[in-house]
């Protein structure tokens, strides 16, 4: 990070990403920030917040204020207020967040307010959500009156942050400074930092003062925000024109001034290429770097080509544009990184066409041919080969218009073909690829490598990191380039001189060596002796090594790490191997630098950590071996197919390709046109993540099924079954007599899914059954997976074929609830996740009748992130229908689902009596009056519906209304709507909607998976964050208590409310879910969900839940308005008064440790938190004991 202020000597060059670089400038040039987390701009907000907590100063000697808001909409409102009251304010956002700001953007622009918003540009959610980069979001703002300034690299992003701020102050036109999400925001590259002096020179103090003087103040009162009528609105709107007319000139002047100060010259339209070019590409953002690099390569080959990079897109200066474009140009291709369906062309294309037409209409010149094309949506790769394809297309007399490049469009045939083998990178660029496991620290080590080489040698370095869609067992791919010259290659490495696989099992699943260049070095981390590695390699890997003549090295980094006391952290070891083998630096120098960086990185974490890492470095080289490659001995087992051969066709054709990391190859025709995907696909992706899996001891087991309930991934399951079912069981399949009065003579089996288990150990931890003679041993114990996988795979397959229990016969207690089939399985959630056990339980109880509306966040990512998804179906093909709308609107979205289902149900109820003569009066009456309060009732109604369907089908075709009622019949079976999301949604961004939905009285069930922090974006504070806990945006610990959402909901008197914690009382959790579902109005359940953002081992999650309840931090209760009908108090506290000090709970979690650096504050906060917990519990006790009023009418009881 660049030091944000008063650094006496700035380093000449640092390596950082655009987020870091932009935050450094924005911090120094502003008074205040109103922020909200959203990928990929979140790090900028985190950085400025971190710096305020360290009292760093801005250019004017102040510590800026940073305020986290409840949404980007809220942030925009706060920004508008800040600006109106004379502050220099800023923010950072992306995608939907930017859309939420739009209303205020119009206001801020309409009032000619100097302001610079920094945007890491990202796709908008359409047929699917994408966290990745394109220009959809910023293009949706081009009409707001904001100036749009586009940067294409981390260096430019830093420089433009400064230029934009200087220009907005001078022009009074607000600026949106944007750069490509992930590709630029997260790419680490060389940046020459900006000193305070340069910033000071760029900022016109008189313009700052003028802005301050326009502030709303009662000392010189003015009025803004009037309502204007037809007589004047139009003219007033036009009055700002001169400001826009001047802006392009002001920006260019600022760029010129910047060039004088720094030597880095920019143009608002910047041409690069052959001076008399015939073919030119017009492009914005990081794609411009790729085009420029390709143009240079093509020119060497004698082609007359060039690139016009658009820096200032709005206000669009026709004059500057035409001036920058070579007069010789004969054909132009305009590349847009967005899609505007139905438009005459994408936005930049349209502007270019207009500009050319306007500019040339009075001149007697031949208009060049202009075509537009789309590229790079959702961070799709944009490579020199694609650029060449576009230039090649321009050679045609009539080049294809409205083309796409980078995909194969075999439906509408818009795409251009490109040569995927083309590689234009200079041989002096050293390219390295690293395949790491998420938790092994590969990315961190590679960032460190980039820093070492980029900052401490004469070389330039670039790092870009590709992450997995899964949160557990995720693969990371690090793309590193090193070169004596600056690196302009914002695309992934295609062929690498060095390929490292840090996790041996990846070789079984992915074509790791596909990108290895001939003669490249291949480094493999594999358990066991390196000497025996060859025969353990998949045959395809052996072949690739020989065919490409690779130098092959192996190390057992796990062993080295273990011996150095570093657990599973192999990062330093593999980094050492890279330096030893790659030759990027002399070996001795490299080792020295690694050791220095260990001291710097881990110094604050204590000597012990430093020492362990140093020991690891020293032992690495001794453990690293070059493997003797036999020329012809291809004795490895062939790699298994990505997906089982009996998987459905769509999965074979599409999902399997994505699973093998080859989704880029799929053509347009492979995809559903409307974002609709099949459910039940996670079962086909057996990821073999666990090193150890639970093994059942039937003799010790008491068959409580607590392990099954706690399992976050539905990978340990129980069944009871008739003895005869055992026929054909594999030899090692285990079962024992079922302890049940209801089902005598049945057998019980507990089985693990060996290839889906994540090895989190929650199950073992909650198991209450101990060996009496050896209490350390339980009824389930962890044992090494590799030795068990073959037999347990067979056992699990057999287990799955055993019959599911008859739902109408299963008693309703915790134990028996766990025999119900989970319809949520093998998700990509973190190992030990605290949310998913609730989601799984929900699907066990009601999943066959559920529609689920899921707010964006962790639960939508593990619930709906491709390639495979966890919601599945039962044997009858029923299961949850799931959808994610947005982050902010989920309650409303769920309500919409409810209204639609109700309307369908009302329709069929309206029609049914007309069919009484054909279906029979009794059947119609029973269908309409059915009691569906129990599983038996549901089953009976399904039977009636089936009977009615048969009778209706028998009616002659063409019978009026037959098809309509046939379609509607299933709506006669009760359906439930679940609205799921985290606390960021329920307490903050979606709270207004959630509140409204609760007020409607309609029958929806809201499940808040409360981790007390924004988990998905990395642990930012929400209004659920408890007092004393540190979270991003409250780094010193939150000084105020959390919002009590349950208490607020109770004030309606008509909402069923429950607070639950499975680890504290699973029976209460079960009861609450059932009561909520049965309650005919809105229900709100707030579920304590332990999370990796709490900072302890997740296998202890359920223990912490218990402590949270025992300490009073998380009182569990149920508030059931129906009890009022029976003269009982609706509120029932399901826990005893606090029996342990709060500290007994909080001391175990890292999040409560942040404030300790200031003991007095920590002490005070601890005391206040303890007092709050006590008094809050007393409040609950009083509420539960107090008399209660009449439940208001319209509470939903009468809603159908």
């Amino acid at each position, binding site marked *: 990070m660049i030091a944000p202020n008063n650094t006496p000597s700035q380093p000449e060059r640092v390596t950082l990403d655009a987020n870091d670089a932009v935050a450094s400038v924005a911090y120094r040039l502003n008074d205040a920030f109103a922020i909200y987390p959203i990928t990929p701009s979140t790090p900028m907000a*985190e950085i400025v917040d*971190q710096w305020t907590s360290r009292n760093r100063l801005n250019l004017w000697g102040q510590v800026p204020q940073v305020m986290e808001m409840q949404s980007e909409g809220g942030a925009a409102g706060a920004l508008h207020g800040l600006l109106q009251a004379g502050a220099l304010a800023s923010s950072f956002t992306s995608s939907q967040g930017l859309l939420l700001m739009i209303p205020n953007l119009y206001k801020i622009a309409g009032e000619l307010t100097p302001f610079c918003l920094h945007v890491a540009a990202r796709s908008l959610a359409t047929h699917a959500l994408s966290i990745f980069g394109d220009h959809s979001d910023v293009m949706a703002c081009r009409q707001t009156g904001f100036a749009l300034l586009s940067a294409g690299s981390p260096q430019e992003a830093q420089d433009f942050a400064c230029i934009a701020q200087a220009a907005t102050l001078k022009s009074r036109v607000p600026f949106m400074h944007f750069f490509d999400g992930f590709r630029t925001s997260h790419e680490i590259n060389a940046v020459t930092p900006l000193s305070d002096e340069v910033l000071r020179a760029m900022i016109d103090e008189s313009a700052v003062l003028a802005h301050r003087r326009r502030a709303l103040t009662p000392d010189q009162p003015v009025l803004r925000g009037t309502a204007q009528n037809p007589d004047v609105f139009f003219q007033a709107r036009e009055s700002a024109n001169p400001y826009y007319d001047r802006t392009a000139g002001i920006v260019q002047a600022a760029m010129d001034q910047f060039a004088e100060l720094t030597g880095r010259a920019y143009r608002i339209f910047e041409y690069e290429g052959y001076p008399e070019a015939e073919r030119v590409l017009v492009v914005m953002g990081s794609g411009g770097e790729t085009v420029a690099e390709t143009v240079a390569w093509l020119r060497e080959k004698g082609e007359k080509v060039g690139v016009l990079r658009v820096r200032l897109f709005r206000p669009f200066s026709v004059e500057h544009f035409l001036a920058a474009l070579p007069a010789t140009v004969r054909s132009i291709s305009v590349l847009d990184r967005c899609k505007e369906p139905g438009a005459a062309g994408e936005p930049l294309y349209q502007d270019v066409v207009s500009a050319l037409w306007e500019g040339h209409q009075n001149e007697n010149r031949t208009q060049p041919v202009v075509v537009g094309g789309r590229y790079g949506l959702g961070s799709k790769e944009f490579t020199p080969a694609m650029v060449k394809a576009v230039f090649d297309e321009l050679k045609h007399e009539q080049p294809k218009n409205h083309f796409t490049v980078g995909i194969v469009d075999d439906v509408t045939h818009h795409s251009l073909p490109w040569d995927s083998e083309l590689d234009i990178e200079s041989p002096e660029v050293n390219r390295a690829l690293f395949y790491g496991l998420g938790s092994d620290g590969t990315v961190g080590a590679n*960032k460190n490598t980039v820093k070492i080489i980029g900052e401490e040698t004469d070389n330039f370095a670039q790092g870009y990191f590709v992450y997995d869609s899964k949160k557990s067992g995720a693969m990371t791919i690090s793309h590193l380039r090193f070169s004596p010259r600056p690196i302009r290659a914002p695309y992934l490495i295609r062929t690498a001189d060095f390929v490292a696989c840090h996790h041996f099992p990846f070789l079984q699943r992915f074509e790791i060596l596909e990108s290895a260049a001939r003669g490249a070095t291949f480094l493999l981390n594999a358990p066991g002796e390196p000497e025996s590695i060859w025969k353990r390699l998949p045959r395809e890997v052996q072949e690739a090594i020989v065919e490409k003549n690779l130098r092959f090295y192996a190390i057992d980094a796990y062993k080295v790490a273990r011996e150095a006391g570093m657990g599973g952290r192999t990062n330093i070891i593999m980094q050492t191997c890279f330096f030893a083998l790659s030759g990027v630096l002399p070996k001795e120098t490299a080792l020295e630098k690694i050791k220095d960086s260990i001291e710097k990185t881990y110094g604050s974490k204590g000597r012990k950590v430093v020492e362990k890492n140093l020991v690891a470095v020293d032992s690495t080289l001794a453990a690293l071996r070059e493997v003797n490659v036999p020329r012809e001995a291809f004795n490895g087992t062939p790699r298994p197919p990505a997906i089982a051969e009996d998987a459905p066709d769509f999965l074979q054709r599409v999902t399997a390709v994505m699973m093998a990391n080859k989704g880029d190859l799929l053509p347009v025709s492979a995809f559903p046109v409307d974002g609709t995907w099949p459910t039940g696909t996670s079962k086909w992706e057996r990821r073999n993540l666990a090193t150890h899996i639970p093994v059942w001891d039937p003799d010790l087991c008491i068959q409580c099924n607590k392990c099954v309930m706690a399992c976050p991934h539905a990978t340990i399951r129980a069944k009871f079954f008739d003895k005869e079912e055992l026929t054909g069981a594999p030899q090692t399949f285990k079962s024992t007599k079922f302890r049940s009065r209801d089902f005598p003579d049945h057998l019980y089996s507990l089985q693990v899914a060996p290839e889906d288990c994540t090895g989190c150990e929650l199950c073992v931890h909650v198991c209450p059954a101990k060996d009496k003679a050896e209490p350390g041993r339980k009824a389930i114990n962890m044992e090494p997976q590799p030795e068990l996988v073959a037999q347990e795979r067979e056992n699990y397959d057999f287990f799955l074929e055993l019959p599911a229990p008859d739902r109408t016969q299963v008693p309703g207690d915790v134990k028996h609830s766990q025999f119900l089939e989970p319809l949520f399985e093998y998700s990509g959630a973190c190992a030990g996740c605290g949310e998913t056990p609730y989601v799984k339980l929900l699907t066990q109880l009601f999943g066959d009748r559920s529609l689920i509306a899921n707010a964006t966040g962790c639960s939508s990512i593990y619930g709906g992130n491709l390639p495979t998804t966890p919601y599945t179906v039962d044997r009858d093909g029923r299961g949850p229908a799931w959808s994610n709308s947005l982050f902010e609107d989920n309650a409303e979205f769920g309500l919409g689902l409810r209204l639609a289902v109700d309307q369908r149900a009302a329709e069929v109820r309206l029609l049914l009596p007309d069919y009484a003569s054909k279906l029979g009066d009794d059947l119609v009456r029973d269908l309409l009056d059915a009691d569906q309060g129990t599983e038996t009732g549901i089953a009976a109604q399904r039977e009636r519906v089936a009977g009615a369907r048969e009778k209706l089908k028998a009616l002659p075709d063409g019978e009026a209304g037959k098809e309509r009622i046939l379609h509607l019949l299933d709506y006669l079976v009760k359906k439930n709507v679940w609205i799921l999301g985290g606390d960021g949604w329920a307490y903050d961004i979606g709270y207004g909607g959630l509140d409204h939905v609760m007020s409607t009285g309609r029958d929806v069930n809201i499940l808040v998976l409360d981790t007390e922090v924004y988990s998905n974006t990395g642990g930012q504070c929400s209004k659920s964050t408890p007092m004393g806990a540190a979270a*991003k945006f409250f780094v010193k610990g939150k000084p105020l208590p959390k919002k009590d959402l349950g208490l607020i909901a109770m004030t309606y008197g008509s909402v069923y409310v429950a607070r639950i914690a499975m680890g504290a009382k699973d029976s209460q959790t079960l009861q609450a879910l059932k009561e909520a579902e049965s309650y005919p109005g809105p229900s709100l359940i707030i579920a304590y969900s332990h999370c990796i953002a709490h900072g302890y*081992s997740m296998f202890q999650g359920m223990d912490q839940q218990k402590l949270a309840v025992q300490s009073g931090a998380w009182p569990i209760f149920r508030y059931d308005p129906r009890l009022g009908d029976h003269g009982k108090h609706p509120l029932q506290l399901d826990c005893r008064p606090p029996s342990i000090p709060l500290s007994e709970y909080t001391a175990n979690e890292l999040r409560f*440790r*942040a404030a*300790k650096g200031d*003991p007095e504050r920590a002490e005070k906060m601890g005391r206040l938190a303890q007092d709050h917990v006590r008094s809050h519990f007393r409040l609950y006790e009083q509420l539960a004991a107090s008399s209660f009023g009449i439940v208001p009418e319209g509470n939903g009881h009468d809603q159908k």
Partner: protein
Amino acid sequence: MNLETNYLGLKLAHPILPGASPLVDNMDKVRRLEDAGAPALVMHSLFEEQIELELTARHYHQDRHEESFGEATSYFPDDDEFTLGPDEYLERIRRIREAVSVPVIGSLNGIRLGGWVDYAGLIERAGASALELNMYFLPTDASESAADTERRMLEIVKAVKGAIKIPLAVKLSPFFSSLPHFTQELEVIGVDGIVLFNRFYQPDIDIENLEATPHLELSHPAELRLRLRWLAILFGQTKATLIASGGVHRTQDVIKAVMAGAGGVQVVSSLLKFGPEHLQTLIKGLSSWMEQREYESLKPIQGSMSLRHAPNPEALERANYLRMLQVWRT
């Protein structure tokens, strides 16, 4: 009345100190202890395990989730914001030093040589005037002899002593084959005081859940007798300050400990029970007892009932045991 005492080379106004306890975790109680007349404050122990485990735990809980998911490259604010046990401990010493004018004595607890020893120096730099090294050791390995154990302990003491310039006290358990010999060995290394004794943490057993459960009870005055005997035996055999710890609840307990040879007396349980102000009661009690008996200073009292000076030294040795058994039999 002169109650002054030499405590590890520090001149203290009187010998009654609040011993290592959680009282120092609360700044209000720290101030109240000073107001009640505490001549120095002993910090609670920073454990070797705490230092090593917490540092690595942070590494484990925080770092392993970083950089593995595109939307969240980390889950916590920057490292520097997290002050874990060891750093918090040092910070607390600093704060207490700022808040009070009496010396603060740090306390380290460890039994294996390792990185934690560095904390001795860090405690010194944080402002501690002396350090107490608590050697809470449970021999569980049958292959390690008593001599090996003692050798190891001495190595640790040597390492700690070498890391600091401030005085060092060593807190021992009573379970030594020859405590006087071991004490002498400590003195050779340069230890300035011996604290007798640490109170063993004795886990209980939960017979329902088949678990060992942590258990710690406040001391009882009866526990003082073990201390008295060994103070009396060691007095005069070492130049190190002898310090009583465990079972000192009342004024007479203080007096007995000093008579047996203690240069300082640490009080914990009674302060936890009655509050920091109880310290004042003890000081006043000592003062008025001495006044009534016309003692002008502690000097003639200290060690007056030690093995060397007691009129009936056999009562402190085996003879007493023999006699008591005979009495009991009759």
